């Protein structure tokens, strides 16, 4: 079985400060990991993904995430937060094991609030 956990319902950070949104996962094989962002009244937008290779993945809008196999984590980070980054962030995982299906399993989401 595959699952993903986002332990924080909300993260608050001041503009200009670094931000981290946490994600841990559980899979049988190797994970395919994704981050999506959802702005109010908008569809989910892809930010970045880890499939294989370099553990540090860079994505859209200056976001990056680090795959840590020993800690089964894939935390989302940004060096300097913007007010416009305020949104709902979802981590998602898919197991690479054959016959595990093609569905992405999403976490419940973390609301990021960046204050001026």
């Amino acid at each position, binding site marked *: 079985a595959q699952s993903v956990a986002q332990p924080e319902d909300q993260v608050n950070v001041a503009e200009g400060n670094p931000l981290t949104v946490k994600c841990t996962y559980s899979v049988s094989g190797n994970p395919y990991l994704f981050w999506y962002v959802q702005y109010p009244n908008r569809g989910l937008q892809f930010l970045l993904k880890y499939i294989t290779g370099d553990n540090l993945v860079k994505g859209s809008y200056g976001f990056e995430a680090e795959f840590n196999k020993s800690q089964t984590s894939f935390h989302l980070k940004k060096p300097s937060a913007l007010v416009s980054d305020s949104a709902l962030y979802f981590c998602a995982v898919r197991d690479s094991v054959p016959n595990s299906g093609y569905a992405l399993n*999403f976490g*419940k989401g973390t609301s990021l609030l960046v204050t001026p």
Partner: protein
Amino acid sequence: GAGVSQTPSNKVTEKGKYVELRCDPISGHTALYWYRQSLGQGPEFLIYFQGTGAADDSGLPNDRFFAVRPEGSVSTLKIQRTERGDSAVYLCASSLIAGTGELFFGEGSRLTVL
């Protein structure tokens, strides 16, 4: 259009009625997914199509839910005998590459069952 299009954007119906939700994916995307998102939750997988066939329908909650994609492009999610618990935002996504490719989501169809 350039993105995934879903209609209607909002649907209010009465308990027991039949509902159809439509998804028009990005042209050329052979993989199509339906998800359901309840308030305060992440998207919950319903069904995945590769081309015209439902490759994985393990997320459909019961036999009141059915989806088709007859020509490998537009898909329709059908819900029979709607219940209040079916109220949610139904999301459609398409992908160029199944499995490792990123999903492109529509803005969703908000279903309210009274």
